[in-house]
């Protein structure tokens, strides 16, 4: 934009507000919040929040003030009907709501109504099916005799055989024996708690056995892992699924299970922040199932207050 020579440069005044320090203070406030998140979210974080809010308020007030200055008061134009008649000019009729305006608003309103009638169900169909009726699945892994006590098995199975291989999942299963008169199993999901890649057993792979159950073909592969590792970004877990290294934010998810007629049945998965102890004595800190990369404990859990509905 070139500045013009003649007259005050009004355009420049419109586009360049006078410099203020409020944005700077606002930025300092944000910086303090960020530092506070690392050092002490409660104290330093709230100091930063106060600075940010104060300077934000001042900044907005300042900006509003600038606009107010530009306002120019113009007196409304008035016409005298009697004078107009005397001068022979046409007098505007006192029609407050002319027909043309009625037709205009009817056309626009009807168009909006038709648009809404079409859009609302279509948008609902695009959004809702992924959230409603997320069914539970039970997975039959076969008779308990397939799971020798103390041995790890990599089980692959289809959650929903009707939709095929795309529903194939993997779990690491260990029979912990009988604990307090009840069978105990450690069943760890192989979905990495970082971004959902397939976690692998860190150890030698043994014989594969196949079983056909109500859920179609199930494969059980012997293994003796020292832990579990993710090939994507290097997340590492111990044999209880606790994170030991890398980017994951929590322990590996686990499957709930039941024993039905001497068969091991997998139920829904749940999330785990960490596990104390091992095997049958393990104390599992359970949470509702959340997506990979989402914290279930600590201050970060407040970033994920409402989970979408699922089984």
């Amino acid at each position: 934009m070139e500045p013009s020579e003649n007259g005050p440069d009004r355009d420049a005044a419109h586009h360049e507000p006078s410099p203020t320090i409020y944005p700077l203070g606002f930025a300092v406030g944000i910086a303090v919040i960020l530092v506070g998140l690392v050092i002490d979210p409660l104290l330093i974080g709230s100091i930063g929040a106060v600075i940010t809010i104060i300077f934000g308020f001042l900044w907005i007030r300042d900006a509003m003030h600038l606009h107010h200055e530009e306002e120019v008061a113009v007196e409304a134009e008035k016409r005298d009907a009697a004078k107009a008649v005397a001068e022979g000019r046409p007098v505007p009729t006192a029609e407050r709501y002319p027909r043309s305006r009625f037709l205009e608003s009817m056309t626009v309103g009807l168009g909006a109504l038709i648009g809404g009638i079409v859009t609302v169900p279509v948008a609902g169909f695009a959004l809702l099916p992924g959230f409603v009726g997320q069914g539970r699945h039970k997975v039959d892994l076969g008779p308990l005799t397939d799971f020798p006590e103390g041995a790890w098995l990599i089980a692959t199975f289809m959650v929903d055989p009707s939709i095929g291989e795309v529903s194939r999942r993997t779990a690491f299963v260990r029979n912990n024996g009988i604990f307090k008169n009840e069978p105990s199993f450690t069943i760890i999901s192989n979905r990495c708690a970082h971004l959902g890649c397939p976690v692998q057993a860190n150890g030698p792979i043994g014989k594969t056995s196949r079983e056909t159950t109500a859920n179609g073909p199930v494969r059980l592969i012997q293994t003796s892992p020292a832990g579990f590792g993710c090939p994507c970004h290097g997340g590492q877990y111990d044999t209880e699924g606790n994170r030991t290294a890398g980017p994951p934010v929590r322990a590996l998810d686990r499957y709930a299970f039941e024993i039905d007629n001497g068969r091991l049945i997998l139920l829904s998965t749940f999330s785990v922040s960490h596990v104390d102890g091992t095997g049958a004595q393990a104390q599992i800190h359970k949470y509702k199932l959340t997506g990979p990369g989402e914290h279930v404990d600590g201050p970060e859990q407040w970033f994920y207050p409402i989970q979408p509905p699922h089984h």
Partner: protein
Amino acid sequence: MASRKPPTKAQLRRQHLEVAVQYPMDWLEERSGLIGGIKYFLFRNVPSDTNWMQTLGASTLTAFIVQAVTGVILAMYYQPTPQGAYPSIVRITDHLTLGWLVRGMHKWGASVFIILMFLHMGRVFLFGAYKYPRELNWIVGVLLLASGMAEGFTGYLLPWDQTAYWASVVGINLNGTAPFLGPWLAQFLRSGQEISGETLTRFYSLHMLVLPGAIAGLIGLHLYLVVRLGVTSPPWSKEAAGRERPEEPSDLRQGLTPPAATGSGGSD
């Protein structure tokens, strides 16, 4: 204008040909104004010191057209089902005549499109071409960039091999880690709690209908603003700086310069 000599045979033939070519053009112009419109769009005045870098936008448009055309053809052979997707990709690549070529154009052209978008954006940034009055066109460009990246994300799943599957798992879960609405966005993208055949059809629909439609519309808006606001001179332009004025002021920017400046002559 009577010519002294009667026209030769060759001249006559040429005249006939011109009439024959001109007639349908005139017919169309009289009824639609399209010829004039296309001329207005294509034969605009641009600053005399434009740079080769300013062809990057048109290159990006060309890359998009290549993606659109090859994509439409690929959609004739591709099957967006969990059982059929990968076999149909194999069939396109290995069995159908020239399928390898068209799929290759689409696959590599996708990278070309994204790279050109970034180069074009870099040119606009470094030339300062995003400044007043072109801010809105920068914003439209950012929306185009986001739509283009979304095209890349949704298209990556479609081959339905291990790379595609796990890349989409990671990509969707990355979206899921966004605060507050992230988990909802991830579940929308997956169309459920887990990736399934519906995720594939959803991505296919987004990839070949929703996003290309959005991109085409945004390109229309982008070009409208380019035509309306004119092409920027490079930052080193003496002409744009007012040091070397062309003899006749370009009428391209009429209405953009403040009215006061027009009557006052040179400002230096």
